[in-house]
């Protein structure tokens, strides 16, 4: 039982060395344990909690229940040098790249296209290879407060070679087993159905890993379709996805996932859903960003000026399968 466990192989992908005790010290010194209101505007949330050079992670993507309004605010505030987790993402990574915010991407899956291709070719954005599951699993490690976790995949592939995984030996079975380093993002964005002012958050429907993301991240920004009374949270404790003390900022963002959908609330705006990819293909991302980001002060103004109440009504009406989300 007590032999030594050699490192059999090791990927060469860049990653931040895990530091569970450093993370604990941050939590001890920076997270408020009290029930205090964390309600802020999208502007305030991003300026206070997203810094140049941060490792940025988010749950889902701009196609579905993603933090669309926060993506646009990050671009509006011209945040730089972000290391982005592309776990089960869509065009949101290209959007952030087009906005000049990104220097590194941990790849699980992302919708690709000219913007991404150019950035990779000219070297302005560096990619590190993982997979959707491996990135979620690294968040699990981060959420457990351990430096790494063993797992049963990644091994044997070029993905492994370009990742930060290692192939080691299980101290119990002495079989080869992969291990991945814990990931503790600097800042997490989570778009939710409901939250109270303290940060108690409810996400409905299937998802990727909002719980582990919130637990593993130093700073957590929740944007919510609806702000609910704290007593409602306490009356149904089993509906809570994330308890308040993990959350630093709560932004009230109706249609925050636009142009994406939020299950149980509204469908995607198909036309605009595809507009950014189209703009990329035509080399017109600047025009896209001007219209949807720079020319509007915030998310609400974007909705008012570029979408309109009628369209929003229609998107709500088009989501006809609400069964199971709010009950």
């Amino acid at each position, binding site marked *: 039982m007590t032999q030594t466990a050699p490192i059999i192989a090791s990927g060469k992908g860049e990653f931040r060395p895990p530091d569970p005790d450093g993370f604990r010290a941050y939590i001890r010194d920076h997270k408020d344990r009290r029930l205090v209101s964390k309600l802020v505007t999208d502007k305030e949330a991003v300026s206070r909690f997203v810094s140049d050079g941060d490792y940025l992670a988010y749950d889902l993507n701009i196609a*579905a229940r993603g933090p669309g309004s926060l993506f646009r605010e990050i671009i509006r505030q011209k945040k730089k040098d972000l290391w982005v987790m592309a776990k089960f993402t869509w065009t949101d990574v290209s959007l952030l790249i087009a906005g000049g915010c990104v220097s590194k991407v941990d790849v699980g*899956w992302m919708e690709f296209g000219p913007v991404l291709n150019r950035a990779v070719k000219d070297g302005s954005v560096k990619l590190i290879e993982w997979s959707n599951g*491996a990135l979620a699993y690294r968040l699990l490690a981060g959420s457990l407060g351990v430096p790494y976790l063993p797992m049963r*995949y*990644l*091994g044997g*592939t*070029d993905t492994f070679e370009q990742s930060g995984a290692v192939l080691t030996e299980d101290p119990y079975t002495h079989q080869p087993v992969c291990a991945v380093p814990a990931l503790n993002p600097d800042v997490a964005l989570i778009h939710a159905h409901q939250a109270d002012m303290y940060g108690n958050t409810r996400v409905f429907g*299937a998802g990727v890993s909002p719980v*582990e993301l919130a637990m593993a991240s130093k700073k957590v920004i929740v944007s919510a379709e609806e702000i609910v009374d704290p007593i409602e949270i306490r009356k149904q404790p089993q509906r809570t996805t994330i308890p308040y003390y993990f959350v630093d900022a709560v932004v009230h963002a109706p249609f925050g996932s636009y142009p994406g959908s939020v299950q149980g609330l509204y469908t995607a705006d198909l036309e605009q859903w595809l507009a950014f990819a189209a703009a990329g293909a035509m080399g017109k991302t600047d025009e896209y960003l001007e219209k949807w980001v720079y020319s509007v002060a915030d998310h609400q103004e974007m909705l008012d000026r570029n979408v309109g109440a009628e369209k929003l009504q229609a998107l709500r009406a088009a989501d006809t399968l609400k069964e199971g989300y709010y009950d």
Partner: protein
Amino acid sequence: MTDSENPTLSFTDTEATICHISKMIQEDKLYFVQMAGAPLMALLMGKRLYAPGVGYVVEEGAVCPDPEFPLPRMMLGSSGVHFRAVQWTSMLMVDSHAALGFMDYGLLAALQVDRFGNFNSTFIGGTYDKPERRFGGPGGANEIASQCWRTIIMTKLQKRKFVERCDFVSSPGYLDGTPGARERAGLPADTGPWRIVTAEAMFGFDDTTHEMRLDAVAPWTTVDEVVAQMEFRPLIADEMGALQIPGEDELRMIRSEIDPSGLTVSKGEWVTIDAVTGKKVA
């Protein structure tokens, strides 16, 4: 040449591949399907026609949904594809279900596949650092191809897709093909690619050498034509099987209920065949 009296049938290679895979779906197995798109359509076609009670999971954490047909125009992130699941949970949970051995089949699409079923979804051409064309990455394919018992891979029969060496092995097949190669890499025992499915041909793998083997071809092509479309020469099954002709009813089903928008299935090469003989119509 074909009897000009016979009716003809036109379909895309994607439609044919969906028809082939749909016939493999069994109610007593569990499936792990990658994202929305053709693989999910193939599974749902099988559920609609042959195995209504079949259980499957998708990466974003829906367990055994029972979507209504016709399927929504845009499946990614639509509540329609998660409808009437037995559980809504997370990616981490369904990945664990696969790690535990509950997922019999993984259903995936690939850009490139090699002799041993290793496949690529990362980049094509050039080098890793200077790729000619970058793609979106493995997504969930690596964990699915590693942890499900058997993997079914959809792709197109083209020389640039059936290659001697993948430009990048995003997800594992039998690696170098040697016995125990996957186990030595830390992957679960006795797993690996099972079928590679294209419109014109279906492939399996030799139990010992793990080399890809041509098992069946469509009536509108031949073994030689198939092999001519591959960069490497696969093993050839002693008894060559015949893929079924997509039925008119099946194609109607795909176009009306599986992909009503046509956004997925109408892409790709169109084939027109003699509906009786199954031969290509010039």
